């Protein structure tokens, strides 16, 4: 339960939302090519009129989609808004983030499931505060390997390409002499990291912890894989929040306030625990 004072504040916020919700997709600046979102027939997408709803998007391709839905529904409850869910249906493996513009323009005000990285997003996007923190994990099928520091330099590491954890790994191995460096085989997706571990292409994988968690839940073939201690590297931990179009400042503020309250009253920790999800709710 939310504390009464917070509840009152959020009730007021919810009322204000109903009045002030901006819904046009106007952009503050003129973004550059590839950063320019475009939706087919975007000029035919009208203004939303039902302002009593919190329209949110989840994507089943995200490992946390079920618990993300529970979190945003809790937020909607706190804001006295009726949650309206839209499930993104797509079987694309990788997509450019500009694609999300069309989805949000048409279907939702909040899209759950984005890692918070400084400078990681274009200026047509804004992000909420984090509702949980999770980490990238080193995993292996070798039962005797318990820490990265014990991995022989001849054995290969396969990181998910371009992540913060991958960059941290690159920085570390560049500080080593050539003969002490592990071969690094960057992989395009978490799925490829896992497959490459099973087929022996790599000895250690480095991927987003929730992605590994979801695969282990879904498929017993991954049960033999285990997380190892990242030392000598520190863990790479990122917050996860929701994405909004940049003009939704008022909603973002309200969402942030609600998340803070839901973390403080233990609601989000309870959801994470319910799913046995590898993340923490931080104030």
């Amino acid at each position: 339960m939310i504390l009464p004072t917070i509840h009152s504040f959020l009730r007021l916020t919810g009322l204000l939302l109903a009045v002030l919700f901006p819904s046009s997709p106007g952009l503050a600046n003129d973004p550059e090519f590839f950063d320019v979102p475009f939706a087919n027939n975007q000029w035919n997408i009208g203004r939303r009129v039902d302002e009593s709803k919190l329209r949110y998007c989840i994507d089943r391709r995200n490992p946390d989609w079920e618990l993300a839905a529970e979190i945003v529904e809790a937020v909607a409850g706190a804001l006295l808004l009726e949650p309206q869910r839209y499930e993104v249906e797509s079987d694309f493996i990788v997509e450019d983030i500009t694609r999300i513009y069309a989805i949000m323009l048409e279907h939702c005000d909040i899209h759950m499931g984005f890692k918070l990285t400084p400078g990681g997003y274009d200026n047509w996007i804004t992000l909420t505060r984090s509702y949980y923190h999770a980490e990238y994990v080193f995993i292996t099928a070798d039962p005797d390997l318990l820490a990265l520091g014990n991995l022989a330099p001849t054995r290969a590491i396969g990181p998910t390409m371009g992540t913060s954890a991958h960059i941290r790994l690159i920085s570390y191995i560049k500080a080593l002499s050539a003969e002490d460096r592990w071969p690094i085989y960057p992989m395009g997706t978490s799925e490829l990291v896992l497959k490459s571990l099973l087929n022996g292409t790599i000895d250690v994988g480095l991927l987003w912890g929730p992605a590994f968690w979801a695969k282990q839940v879904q498929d017993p073939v991954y049960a033999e894989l285990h997380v190892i201690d990242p030392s000598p590297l520190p863990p790479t931990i990122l917050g996860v929040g929701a994405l909004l179009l940049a003009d939704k400042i008022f909603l973002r503020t309200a969402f942030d306030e609600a998340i803070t309250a839901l973390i403080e009253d233990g609601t989000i920790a309870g959801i994470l625990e319910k799913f046995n999800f590898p993340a923490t709710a931080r104030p």
Partner: protein
Amino acid sequence: MSNKLNINKILLLAAMVFGVSGGFAAADAIDDITPVTDEMLLNPSDGDWLMWRRTYDGWGYSPLDQINKGNVSELKLAWAWGMSPGGRTQETPVVHDGIMFVQNSSHLIQALDASNGDLIWEYDYDLPDDARTQGVRSKAIYGDNLIIATRDARLLSINAKTGQLNWNKQVANYKKGYSFSSGPIVANGVIVQGATGCSKAQPGGCFITGHDPATGAEIWRVHTIARGDTPEGNSWNGVPLASRHGGSAWISGSYDPDTNLILIGVGQPYPWNMEMAGLKPKISDLRVSNDALYTNATLAIDANTGELKWYHQYLPTDGLDLDYVYERVLIDLPFNGKMRKQVVTTGKIGIIESVDRTTGEWLWAKETVRQNVVLSWDKKTGKKTINPDTFPVAGETTVNCPADPGAHAWQPAGYSPLTKAMYVPTVEFCSNTTVKTLDPGEIYTGGGMQTYSRVEHPDGDSNIGQIFAINMTDQSELWQYRQRAPLTSSTLPTGGGVVFVGSMDRYFLAFDDTTGEKLWSSGKLSNALESFPITYTAGGKQYVAIMANHKSGLGRLSSITPEIQLPPDNPATLYVFALPN
């Protein structure tokens, strides 16, 4: 609805400003269209434009001379045609026997009377909702049929007379990122098509395929990323095939009928940052290089068998998205006193380079714009010394000139046999480059992993756009034109001694091919001119056509030319000019 009205207003205004002069071709002209033979492709009628660069040699030159230096100033708008708005398109119309064929970004294929723009037929390809609604740069015509490439990685054969679909061939799975952004050429009876979009979702890189025009069946496939235990296959710093990405063949190639070779470019490795791609730091195994073949190379491929005859790589280990994928111009001229069959290309760095197209031997290079990426090159091999300060490194911001759109972008250079000059459109600018992580979401992690903040060149004169006219007999500069607005179309030299080019600030321009004097400028058109102008005849009259559209590569320069305002809904309009009757 309001946008359509706006476009109509723009077109009406344009017609009032320029004065419309109409043609009078018969509406049933399509009935007389003739099949396109191999001989026609080898020696096209002066009035036809049958493929991307008009001829197999990639010159982008037309011998037509009704419009010439003496009268080009009288050009008027003849007709215009509104096309699907919003989607990025870089259309090159095909014209045969007075009929023009265009492909809208929505993948609506249309046949128009090329004398007056009247619609004859249209075929609406059902592009999947989740495929990118964007145009494809070019198309082919062969026999009775148009050969169309689609954004969802299919090839279509459409009857040119009726607009009826003959066959529809899926070449690759677009949901794994594969796509076609440029169309095919037909060489010696084989459809040749390059693929793009081979990024994180699909390791192993891109490919070029050969197809049977009768059925679309794939005859051969050449992978653009080298494989196997060969020097080329071992050029990826020891990473397995599962970790090799990129090598898009996103620009159509040229064809040398004497050797039956397709000469086609391959783009950069992916991701751009070499450390993220696993290409740096270089491993110590001396049998292994990190050149990343066949990225940034010319491939010479037998048109009928798909056999790779030779390759030449211009820029190994490219960490800046500086493709050498663009036009391949085939020119036979002496070099060092000996006649050479050359294939000439200009990479994004703006360095023109020539290779002997029979052997792959590197011949010469010519620098155009100010750049800081290449410090020098070996005068015998072309091997470059790269400025280490331009290598993007995590945690630092580096400066590179040019930035990723390229000093020379996808807008190809035209070559005129009259002047023996190549007219290279260039832009001059730099980038503050920062490595960017791709954490965002489990799915939304596409992109280049570097942020390019584009800025003017510190030693520049604020003229972003240029044309370099280079004498190809001795690589000397014939003339140079500079202006503030980026020049955003290919150059079109003609038998009339005129070179046409379009600009981002919505002007279509004509220059004297020997002096560089500006001879004509259109009024302001509806949008930036980011496409490939063509010229043709219909009913015996010469026309010049260009597509207006924005957000196509050099649109990225809008951040350093904020004074150039373009319509937000990105209208796409085909403009056709002619002399008054």
